[in-house]
Each structure stands twice: as structure tokens, then as C-alpha cells.
């Protein structure tokens, strides 16, 4: 926009005819990409602002009349229990983020920067963690660490003769653990993506100046990827406070309350959507505060790692410590994937899992039933992957474009755009879904019952992940490379196509996966928006758990794991090693 007015800036006022030609001139001189940016803002308006605005308005509206009122806020915060839920969520989010840092950053560093062995296996297991729906993992952990019958506690009692369980999953630490162990892949992927592009030269410089490996890592390498770490921490924090399934499984028996379980209460009959909306507002404010904080922390430093000037990457030799590194990674990942799936397998392959493990109790019937007999199981598997793929493509395109215009300051209100991209993450899925249903189910769009309402809601819901990742990646690219294209006469789009996209390619695939995978397991928005022909796998898992059909629930969990592994394997074939392993060694 600035360019357009500049071009016409020096002209004096004149006749109407002149004005017309001036407009034509303005249009001619207009950078055509401006139109693209305007379109993007319109899309954001559609996906985020409209549903969000409805949410805010609802929180100030009287139930039937729609008149302005503050009564909803009084109702939402009028009881100590409700406020306590809010506090619990904040503590939970902080604890989860801290634990995720401990879980993810060392493994990410090990995989990306060191000569740790079996990196492929570690990456595969992280992927396995990531595709596991948190509530499925939580069920696995109930079986592992339930106070009475959990395997870990049974073994503990057998060994020590103790009365008390070793670890009671039904507790605040239990919930923190469960959420962290299934959220740390966000942070892992953010951090490895950033570490992968840091060249060894900077580390070498530190080494030349006499810094040891440890000091170099802490003072040079990790600070270089600070934006990625902060982005990942924020995402895990928001994930922790917006999650419904795991708190419902763990917090209710543990007898404490968090925001999402409280929101669910506001939705139960008689539903008080307006109170729920008021109750969701602090989450939005927390998000704003987090982003302010992030900006302040990284504002004063530069994080440009991709300069286009070449660079070398060498893994750091850890010596015998590389085995310790691998041991740590495998410990974390067996807690996240191996043990839960083993124990779920006992149910998935059992005729009656309550009977325990025995040869005559083994069967494949649960799989056979899901694949060939269930009315909607097959369709729901296909739906999940289709919608998730569409979501990933749309969200990625949108996030990249917005990250670009924000970072290159092409529009005056970039900060607002960033916030809008990140805001949906804290809106609990069910609240977002209601905003979408209210906005787009009725005519004129009548999207209800179509795949589009799901895809658009998912896109909105996961836009923050795509955006956080895309903007971290964008921040690492030196604008000089683009400027070079433009100095040589290339347009902005050419620069994007030929410089930015190729540089970001591996990161983009990672980001795509980061949206695709959670979209396949997304529950809270889906459960409100699906129609007769658009049921997804996550909805089915939830139905099966609600129906108490545990054998089939576990079998479906295994199918989900298998299907995603197949997709990733196909991805390998199509895209090459980059798809998941990115850079196996320095290149």
C-alpha cells in the first residue's frame, strides 16, 4: 500500500478526469502482491475474526435478548471453584511447559547436533508419540499407573511389599506428566528444525575462542534457536490449557478441576454458552501476554542463521556420552510410546481384556470388526486423513504468507495479524466449534454436514502451529537474499518462489506434518461439527470410549498408529529422506 501512494504522491490535485487516470496509474503501479495480502486478511477475517468476534460478543450478551450485560462474567467468576479451575490450568500449563523443555530440548539437540546413534529410530518414536491422541495415551497410562491395578504399581508392590502405589496417575503430577509426554513433540520438532540450519561455523568460533562443548552449546547453539524454543514452549503451554480429553480422564477422578472440564460443565444442560464465552476470555488474554513476552525477549537480538553464504554442519562427537544421550531419549520415548501401546495391545488383541493375557484369549476380531463390519469405521479413517491433509495444506499456505508479510513489514498492523494467527489455539475446540457452527452452518454458506466446515475449523484451530513454525523459520532467513533478487529486477513473488520456498523446503514439510498429525487426532472441534457422512476417527475413538468398548478402542488406536506409519513411509518414498529425517547427517 505504501508503494502505491508513493507512486502517486508527488501529483497535484486536478480535474475528475485526471483523478480517474491517477487511479488507473495507481493501479498500474500497484505491487500486484498487495491484492494477495488483502485477500489473506480477508481470509483471516473469515476464519478467525468472525468466530472470535461472535465469542466476545456472546460473552457480553444476555442469553435470550442479546442485550449488553456483565452478568456472564459475574456467573463465570462468581464461585471460588471456577476461579480455582483457572488457576489450576495456569499452573498446569507452566508445569507442562517446563517438563516439555526437559524432555524435548536434550533429545532435539542430540538428534540434530551430535553423533548420537539410532537417530532414525528416535525420530520415528517421536513421530509415534506425536500421532498418539493424548486421551488414548492417557488410557494407556491409567492401565500402567492406576493406583490399584496399574502394572507399574503392581510390580512395585510385588517387589517391595509396600501398601501405597509408587505413582498414582490420578493426581496433579500425573496429569502434568500425561500431557507433557504427548506434547513435547511440538517442542522437539520446533527445536530440531531450527538446530538443523545452524551452521557449525558459529560453534567453531566459540571453540576457537576457547569455549568447551558444553559452554558452546549453552551459550551459542541454544541461544541461536531461542525463537524456536520460545515458540515451542508457548505452543505446549497453550496445548496444555486447551486440552480436554486427558483432564477429563485424569483430573475428574483425581478430584480437581481445570478450565476445560469447567467449560464442559457450562455446556451441559442447560447450556450456558455465554458464560462459557466469558470464562474463555482470560485464556485469550494469557495468549496476548505470552506473545508480548516472546517479542520482548527476542526483539533486541538477531537470529539470522540462514545467510545464503554457505556453511558447514558437523555433528559434535560426544564420545561415550552418546550412549547416555540415546539412553535418555529411549527412556522418554518408551514412556510415551512403547509401554502404553504394549498395554493397549493387550486389549486390542483380546477377546475379553478383563481376563488378562492368555493364549486362548487372543483374537484379531476387533480389527476385523473395525475394518470390515463397522458401519462407519472405514469411512472415518479415510475422512480423518483427507481432512487433515487439506487442513495442513491450507494452514501452511496461509501461515507462510502471513508470516512473510509480518516479518517483512509489508502491512502496518503486523502485530495484530500475528496475534490473530495465534489466538485460535487457546480457544477450546468446543468453543471454537460453536463459533463456527453459529457463523457458517446456516445459510448463506450452509456448510453444515460438509467436509468444509470441519476443514475450515481445523485450519483455524491449527493455524497457530503452522504460523509459529513458519514465522520462526522466516526469522532465520536473511532478507538480503531476497533483496538480491529484487535488485536484479525480480518481483516479490519470484523471490518467494525461487528463494524463500526452496530455503524453507524441509522446514515446510515438517510444518505440514505438525498440522497434519494433530488434525488427524483432533477431537473437541470435530465432535460438534461432524455430520452423518463426515465422522472422523477421533470422534469414533471418543464414541468407543464412551460406549465402554475398550477392546475395539484399543484396536482402533493401533490402527491409527499403523496407518500413520504407512503414510509416513509413503512420504519417505515420495519426498525422500527429508520427509521425516530431514538431515540425517550434516550436508
Amino acid at each position, binding site marked *: 500500500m505504501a508503494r502505491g501512494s508513493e507512486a502517486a504522491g508527488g501529483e497535484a490535485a486536478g480535474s475528475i478526469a485526471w483523478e480517474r487516470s491517477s487511479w488507473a496509474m495507481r493501479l498500474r503501479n500497484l505491487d500486484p502482491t498487495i491484492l494477495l495480502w488483502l485477500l489473506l486478511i480477508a481470509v483471516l477475517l473469515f476464519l478467525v475474526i468472525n468466530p472470535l468476534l461472535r465469542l466476545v460478543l456472546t460473552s457480553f450478551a444476555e442469553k435470550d435478548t442479546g442485550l449488553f450485560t456483565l452478568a456472564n462474567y459475574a456467573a463465570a467468576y462468581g464461585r471460588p471453584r471456577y476461579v480455582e479451575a483457572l488457576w489450576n490450568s495456569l499452573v498446569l500449563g507452566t508445569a507442562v511447559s517446563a517438563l516439555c523443555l526437559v524432555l524435548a530440548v536434550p533429545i532435539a539437540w542430540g538428534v540434530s547436533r551430535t553423533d548420537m546413534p539410532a537417530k532414525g529410530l528416535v525420530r520415528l518414536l517421536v513421530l509415534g508419540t506425536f500421532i498418539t491422541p493424548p486421551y488414548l495415551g492417557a488410557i494407556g497410562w491409567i492401565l500402567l499407573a492406576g493406583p490399584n*491395578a496399574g502394572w507399574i504399581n503392581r510390580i512395585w508392590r510385588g517387589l517391595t511389599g509396600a501398601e501405597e502405589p509408587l505413582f498414582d496417575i*490420578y493426581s496433579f503430577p500425573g496429569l502434568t506428566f500425561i500431557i507433557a509426554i504427548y506434547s513435547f513433540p511440538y517442542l522437539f520438532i520446533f527445536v530440531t528444525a531450527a538446530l538443523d540450519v545452524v551452521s557449525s561455523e558459529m560453534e567453531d568460533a566459540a571453540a576457537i575462542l576457547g569455549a568447551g562443548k558444553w559452554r558452546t552449546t549453552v551459550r551459542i547453539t541454544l541461544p541461536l534457536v531461542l525463537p524456536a524454543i520460545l515458540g515451542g514452549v508457548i505452543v505446549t503451554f497453550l496445548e496444555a490449557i486447551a486440552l480436554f480429553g486427558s483432564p477429563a480422564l485424569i483430573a475428574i477422578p483425581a478430584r480437581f478441576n481445570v478450565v476445560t472440564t469447567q467449560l464442559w460443565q457450562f455446556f451441559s444442560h442447560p447450556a450456558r454458552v455465554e458464560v462459557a464465552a466469558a470464562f474463555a476470555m482470560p485464556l485469550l488474554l494469557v495468549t496476548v501476554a505470552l506473545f508480548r513476552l516472546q517479542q520482548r525477549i527476542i526483539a533486541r537480538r538477531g537470529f539470522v542463521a540462514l545467510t545464503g553464504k554457505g556453511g558447514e554442519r558437523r555433528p559434535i562427537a560426544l564420545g561415550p556420552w552418546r550412549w547416555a544421550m540415546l539412553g535418555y531419549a529411549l527412556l522418554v520415548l518408551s514412556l510415551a510410546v512403547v509401554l502404553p501401546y504394549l498395554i493397549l495391545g493387550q486389549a486390542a488383541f483380546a477377546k*475379553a481384556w478383563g481376563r488378562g493375557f492368555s493364549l486362548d484369549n487372543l483374537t484379531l476380531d476387533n480389527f476385523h470388526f473395525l475394518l470390515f463390519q463397522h458401519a462407519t469405521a472405514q469411512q472415518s479413517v479415510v475422512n480423518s486423513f483427507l481432512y487433515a491433509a487439506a487442513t495442513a495444506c491450507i494452514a501452511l499456505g496461509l501461515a507462510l504468507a502471513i508470516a512473510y508479510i509480518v516479518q517483512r513489514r509489508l502491512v502496518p498492523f503486523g502485530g495484530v495479524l500475528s496475534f490473530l494467527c495465534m489466538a485460535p489455539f487457546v480457544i477450546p475446540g468446543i468453543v471454537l466449534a460453536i463459533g463456527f457452527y453459529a457463523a457458517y452452518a446456516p445459510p448463506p454458506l450452509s456448510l453444515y454436514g460438509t467436509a468444509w466446515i470441519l476443514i475450515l475449523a481445523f485450519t483455524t484451530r491449527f493455524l497457530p502451529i503452522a504460523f509459529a513454525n513458519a514465522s520462526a523459520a522466516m526469522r532465520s532467513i536473511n532478507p538480503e537474499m531476497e533483496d538480491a533478487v529484487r535488485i536484479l529486477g525480480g518481483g516479490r513473488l519470484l523471490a518467494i518462489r525461487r528463494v524463500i520456498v526452496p530455503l524453507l523446503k524441509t522446514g515446510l514439510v515438517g510444518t505440514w506434518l505438525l498440522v497434519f498429525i494433530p488434525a488427524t487426532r483432533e477431537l473437541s472441534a470435530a465432535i460438534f461439527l461432524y455430520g452423518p457422512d463426515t465422522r472422523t476417527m477421533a470422534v469414533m475413538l471418543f464414541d468407543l470410549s464412551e460406549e465402554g468398548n475398550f477392546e475395539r478402542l484399543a484396536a482402533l488406536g493401533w490402527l491409527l498408529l499403523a496407518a500413520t506409519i504407512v503414510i509416513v513411509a509413503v512420504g519417505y518414498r515420495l519426498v525422500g529422506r527429508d520427509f521425516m529425517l530431514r538431515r540425517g547427517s550434516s550436508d
Partner: protein
Amino acid sequence: MRQTILGWAAAAALVIAAAPAARADFTQLYEAARKDGELTWYTAHFTTQQAEETGRAFEKKYPGIKVNVVRTTAQVAYQRLNQDMAAGVVKCDVFSSTDIGHYIELKKKGALLAHTPENAGKVGEPFQKLDPDGMYHATAAGLIVIGYRTDKLKPEELPKNWTDLLEPKWRNKISTGHPGFSGYVGTWVVTMEKLYGWQFFEKLEKNRPQIGRSINDTVTMLNAGERIVSFGPTATTLESADRGNPVGVIYPTDGSLLMVSPSAIIKGTSKPNAAKLFMEFLLDVENAQVAVKNRQESLRPEVRPLAGAKPYTEFKIIRPSDAEVAAGIPKAIERWRDLFGG
């Protein structure tokens, strides 16, 4: 499940062959319904599988009419219906919730079509005349009883009635749902309070029950071995037992809690005849057959439950009034959460 379908088909064939004369004639209604071609059914009554089975059974009996089954939980179904109404569109033709409060509210708003199906008079006595004005009708029923681990409790150790479970020996052994998440549990809490006062729950709290959400969570906790007795549903517990799990049910001597779930036609439906025919079907013998195969209660006296379950005529039934439930549940949820936390 294949067995279920075969069994159902055989049973249906038998019924159709044996009693054609006793059954109402819907030829005219069917003809009119065929012109409607399809209907949309928002249902929270059954499991997804059973809801689909019901839809397919209807389509088989009445070819040419398609049922769009939208199966969700009761609150989601109701929320959607309200959104539809706010937008001035009727997407749902027949509405089947498990929450009686929904119907009381819909009726007040004038959103229901007054229509009494012919089959409404042929269901068992406890299921008749749910609404004096014939706006909604009982189309599904379940029971809340005591569930237990058959391999961990000897017959002489079994509790006989609800209050037996307040004894200290059941400490850390009981599993229950949450009234804030399950209408079944909510109704059960209201009923227990009515019978034994709130002290029932104060004593129960001392036994540290495991609190899940859905009433079906109790079955999972029994199977996991985390707990050995439950305040649980007949349907899911017996279904789990059918698969070979070591669980069973006890009908408490002080009364099994009967849960009746209604269905209604939404006013303004563009498929009135298909909707009416579908209501007839929900009250018909075929649907009762599908129900007992899925371990739900049969509404029709001529369809008896499978082994392991008793017909409602053979044990004591308790059931609070709709008004008691509607008024009692919100209060019960608050008191429950004050007592148990979470």
C-alpha cells in the same frame, strides 16, 4: 456383530411370520413417507453401531426411505438443534435425546409436533404416556444397577442393595460416573438422595469411590481391575460380559433405576410422513429386537431379554418423576462437586 445381525434377521423373520394380524397396518403412511424419501435423525440414544443398525433396519423394512443418522451425545445433539432453530432451519426431523429436560424445554418453546404413534399404545406399561400431550414418547430404556467382577467376588460377598456399598469394606473398591457428565449418573444421584438423603453420598465419599465421567467408564474400571463394584448400566456391563469379560450385574433389592429416553418429531419438518413412520418403527418389535441384542431394555412385552438379564417385570423398578429429575440434577451436580471436588 455378524451374529447379532443374523440373529436379529432371524428373530424379525420369525416375528413377522408369526404375528402378522396383530400388527398395525402402515401401508398408507409408508406410501406417503416414500414421497418424503428420507429423514434426518439426531440421536443420543444408542451406541453409534446400534444407531446405524437401527437406521439400516428401518431402511430394510421400508425400502425407498433413507435415514441420515446423526449420532452424538445428548448435549451436542441439543446444542445443534438449538443452533438450527436459531438459524430458522429444520435439519432434524426426529430428535432422540437421553435428557428429558430437553423435551420439557422444547415443548415449552412449541418446537415439537404433537403426534401419537399407533405403536405407542403397544409398549410396556412403564414406557407409556411419558407426555400427557403426546409430544414425545419413550423409545429407549436402560437400567442402572450394581455391576461387579465375577472373578473377584464370591456370591456370598455380593452387595444386595444400594446401601450395602456404604459399608467400610468397600473402601477403594467402588467405581462411579459423574453427574456433571452423565445424565444417567445425574438421575441416579437424584434418586439415591430421594431414597436415602444426602448422607448416602457423605458416607459414599468416605469409601473413596473412583469417579469417571460417563456411566460406561465404570465398566472400563471393572475390566481394568482398578475397582471391583460399580454403580453401572446393565447394557454396557452385559455387552462386555457377552465378549467374555468377568463382569456381571446385580439388580438391587431396593430397586433398579429405570432410565427412559424419549423421541419426538420436530415441528416444521419437511418430511412429516417419513418422521411419523420412523417413530412407529422406533416403537415397533424390530427395534426392540435390535435393542435386546445390544443389551438395551425391550419396550415391547413380546420381546424378552437375552440370558444374564431379567425382563423388567421380574424385579423392582424405581424411577423419579421427570419434574424431580429436571429440578434435581443441577442442584445434585453442585452438591456432588462440593463434596467430591473436581
